[in-house]
């Protein structure tokens, strides 16, 4: 089974948990391994939080979930003022820093990560995850 969902969301804090719960429901329908699902939930949350924090000028953003039995691809797109994708690719924040871990976590927890951002075109964060196994105990949605 494979499903694609395109979501158009207001750029506000409450969209972040809402998208995460939709992803959780989709993953539980497909009985995705719990660990893989948890990693994707974090990555998606960080990508959406990045939009809410940095996509100044945009009042909406878009999330595309493409979930199949063997893997999942996610894109988070906005038309905002962009973020520094190069700086975001740098190493993890120092242990005593209280910010700057979001995009590092996306890279650490998913595969084929692509980040593209410019002030004129907005931003896109794409990431994927191959599922290690199918049939784990998925959390209820």
């Amino acid at each position, binding site marked *: 089974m494979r499903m694609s969902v395109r979501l158009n969301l207001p750029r506000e804090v409450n969209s972040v948990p809402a998208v995460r719960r939709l992803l959780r429901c989709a993953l539980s329908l497909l009985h995705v391994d719990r660990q893989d699902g948890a990693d994707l939930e974090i990555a998606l949350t960080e990508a959406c939080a990045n939009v809410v924090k940095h996509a100044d000028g945009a009042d909406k953003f878009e999330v595309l979930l493409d979930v199949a039995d063997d893997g999942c691809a996610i894109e988070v797109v906005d038309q905002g003022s962009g973020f520094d994708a190069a700086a975001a690719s740098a190493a993890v924040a120092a242990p005593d820093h*209280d910010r700057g871990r979001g995009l590092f976590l996306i890279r650490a927890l998913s595969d084929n990560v692509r980040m593209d951002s410019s002030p004129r075109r907005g931003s896109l964060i794409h990431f994927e995850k191959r599922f290690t196994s199918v049939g784990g105990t998925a959390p209820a949605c």
Partner: protein
Amino acid sequence: MSLTVQTEQRADVVVVSVAGELDMATAPRLQDQITDLLEKGRTRLVFDLAEVSFCDSTGLSVFVRAKNSTDEAGGVVRLAAPQRGVLRILEVSGLVEVLRTYPTVDEAVTAQEPALD
């Protein structure tokens, strides 16, 4: 979904019990509670995470900030009983080395600090 935060004095620490999902929508509630405790001079904090089902980088930031503040004041921050997913984000981010984490609340409450850090 909401986040609930309850506090209880136990021995020489305050146990802050957190329940729910910790992200940018809910973290301010926990941050307010911590700020309140610090203003009252409570700088020895144990966070009971047994009921935290999700934590993102915003949640981690709250604990790092709490640690930085309590370090300055000569206090401590300890995390207790994280679920597997929360433990994973602590490990992946490298913070499990920085934020002292214990399997149970009892162990976190009774833990002895090293004589010199």
